[in-house]
């Protein structure tokens, strides 16, 4: 009898503790190994405390995650946390009632929040004009230049720091039988981060941070056009290989050892380690020595986490607790090690250094160092609505440039015209 009673009590107790845990959900756009790592982080969080139970759900790609988050919000079924990628940031930040700013959420739950703890490169991208964090930076990356060390030894040259140096060494690589360079996603590499690395203004209204009304994209300036005139000329001289807008199509020649250099994401490091059968290393993404004030840090790429509005106090407290957990040096270092994305806090970077991680994997440090370079007036970030569509316009015109259907001049005036039409359209929706 006593035994049965005690079992019942024990059962009741376990049931009540399980019942007390608040469930929160996290929708993300990561697949493969990166998706598994997200599950591991959620397990670590659930194991570390017992008030909250976090369930991550993959919603396909970045774009699909954003669209399904939006559709869910419209029908009142939104998750607590939604992962939104860099180009979609303006869409969600403009919808003021859709999210609770990460900083308000964390301080509101009585937890500490220190902007200065984050590395300089990530502080502004998902923040408002006053620097308040709206999104919580999560998986962050930078575009870097990977190079095949064997190819460079064969050609007897050194990896370039600037595009001027690239022009000097590229013919030697070509003559050694390599495609000197390929690059994935030219929108990110040669427009967005051309702007950041060379400290060039990208949009009016303080790169779009001061409001959507009247924001115009600035891409038809001489420097931007010069970058593409050069790329086109290099492509014609077999110094650069263009393989369309697809990420993997441009990566493949490098993976197969045909291309000597590839501009890709610092987050590609983990995948490259498995696919490349040669020794490779990486350096910063080049800039133009001829442009005054160039050599600044790059924009943060990747994605951030947004706390969706319309949730109960308890759930928001759990979300806040998870955000704090996520920025702890241990979690950040774990994430950095498992995926190749950069640590987002100074403390996590210090931890990775003190653990000797970069002695084994020097390539893993290149991205974060590039993000910690000196910032310029225009390297903090940009905020443009309907930006994913503007990227599509650019991709279309870039393909046309490289198949000789349009001149660089004309392509950029089309991009500016269509881009501004999209921005004006967005400004109308955002009021």
């Amino acid at each position, binding site marked *: 009898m006593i035994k049965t009673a005690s079992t019942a009590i024990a059962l009741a107790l376990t049931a009540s503790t399980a019942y007390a845990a608040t469930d929160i959900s996290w929708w993300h756009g990561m697949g493969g190994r990166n998706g598994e790592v997200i599950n591991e982080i959620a397990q670590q969080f659930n194991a570390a405390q017992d008030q909250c139970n976090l369930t991550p759900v993959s919603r396909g*790609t970045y*774009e*699909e995650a*954003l*669209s399904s988050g*939006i559709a869910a*919000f*419209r029908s009142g079924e939104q998750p607590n946390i939604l992962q939104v990628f860099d180009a979609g940031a303006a*869409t*969600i930040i*403009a*919808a*003021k*009632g*859709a999210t609770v700013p990460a900083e308000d959420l964390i301080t509101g739950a009585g937890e500490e929040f220190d902007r200065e703890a984050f590395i300089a490169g990530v502080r502004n991208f998902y923040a408002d004009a006053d620097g308040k964090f709206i999104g919580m930076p999560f998986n962050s990356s930078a575009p870097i230049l990977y190079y095949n060390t064997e190819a460079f030894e064969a050609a007897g040259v050194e990896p370039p720091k600037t595009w001027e140096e690239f022009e000097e060494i590229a013919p030697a690589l070509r003559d050694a039988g390599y495609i000197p360079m390929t690059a994935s996603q030219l929108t990110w590499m040669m427009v967005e981060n051309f702007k950041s690395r060379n400290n060039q203004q990208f949009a009016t209204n303080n790169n779009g941070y001061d409001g959507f009304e009247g924001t115009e994209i600035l891409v038809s300036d001489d420097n931007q056009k010069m970058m593409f005139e050069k790329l086109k000329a290099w492509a014609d001289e077999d110094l650069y290989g*263009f*393989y*369309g*807008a*697809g*990420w*993997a*199509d441009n990566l*493949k*020649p490098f993976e*197969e050892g045909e291309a000597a250099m590839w501009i890709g994401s610092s987050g590609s490091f983990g995948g490259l380690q498995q696919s490349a059968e040669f020794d490779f290393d990486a350096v910063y993404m080049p800039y133009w020595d001829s442009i005054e004030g160039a050599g600044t840090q790059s924009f943060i790429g990747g994605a951030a986490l947004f706390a969706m509005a319309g949730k109960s106090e308890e759930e928001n407290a759990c979300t806040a607790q998870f955000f704090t957990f996520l920025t702890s040096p241990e979690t950040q270092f774990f994430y950095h090690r498992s995926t190749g994305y950069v640590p987002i806090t100074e403390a996590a970077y210090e931890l990775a250094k003190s653990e000797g991680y970069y002695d084994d994997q020097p390539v893993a440090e290149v991205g974060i160092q590039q993000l910690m370079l000196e910032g310029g007036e225009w390297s903090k970030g940009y905020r443009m609505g*309907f930006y*994913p*569509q503007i990227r*599509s*316009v650019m*991709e*279309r*015109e*870039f*393909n*046309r440039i*490289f*198949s000789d*259907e349009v001149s660089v001049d004309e392509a950029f005036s089309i991009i500016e015209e*269509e881009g501004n039409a999209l921005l004006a*359209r967005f400004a*109308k*929706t*955002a*009021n």
Partner: protein
Amino acid sequence: MTDTPLSLAEADSTLFTRLRRWWSGETANPVKRVQFDRPLTPWMFLLPQLAVVAIFFYWPSVQAVTSSFYLEDPFGFGATFVGLDNYTDALTSRGYMSTAAFTAFFCVVVTALSLGLGLLLAVKADKVIRGAETYKTLLISVYAIAPPVAGLIGMMFFDMHMGPFTQIAAWFGHDLRVGIDYWDTASALIVISVWKQIPYNFIFFLSGLQSVPVSVREAALIDAKSGWRRFCDITLPLLAPTAFFLLVINITYTMFDTFPIIDVIVKDKPANNPMTLVYKVYLDGFKGNDIGGSSAQSVILMVVVALLTVLQFRFLERRVHYG
């Protein structure tokens, strides 16, 4: 096939009169009255189907039409009535018009090629005696492949780094760059879409051919020696109902069902690659989150398809002879 024109003609002419008769208890055809003695019974049987049509077609269509007049922020906080702005924006944009032109071209080419090749193969298969079953099964089996898989298989052939078609083109001095060059991508898209649709046309043409009576064929054999002549004068007119049905199906296929093939070919990054209007609706609505603009585009598409169907039934169907 013989029942179709009758019921269509009935539905076309007298829907309202029939409703009125039903209401007053009369029936158009007293002979059929024995089947349902209560007027509500047939409607009960129809209800599930009608519910599906209402929920998945009428309701979304009404939503699309309404939101096409609004400019809305993605999260649905506010919608501004903009009248026909979304329509004029779409119809005056360079991207939309070139997509529309490509869709029309794509529709004509894919329909013509897949109908033509399907018919050719069916006529030839009809004559095969030894190994006919194997031959037919091989031709039909492609139909079992899902469109995205067909796209993937096609792209293995057209891959710019290692695709065999790319290598074959290189022997002839053409640098085939699917994904970069507009017309190279268009060719790949057409080849894959046609390949995927041929088996469907083949099945229908073959069964159509097999229903041509042997006596008619034999009689024709006496009248005309030339096989081509017999084909034009006897076989083709008898195949007309099948061909008309297939024409409607093939146009719908190229306009809507080629979506997964395009999605696989452009790999998430359309750039300057050709695409159909449906794909553009998806891009602007689901990836660009421009709900008003995308709705306007889908309404335009709906109108075009409705017009096309009316035209087909008005002008083409009259020329079709149903046995």
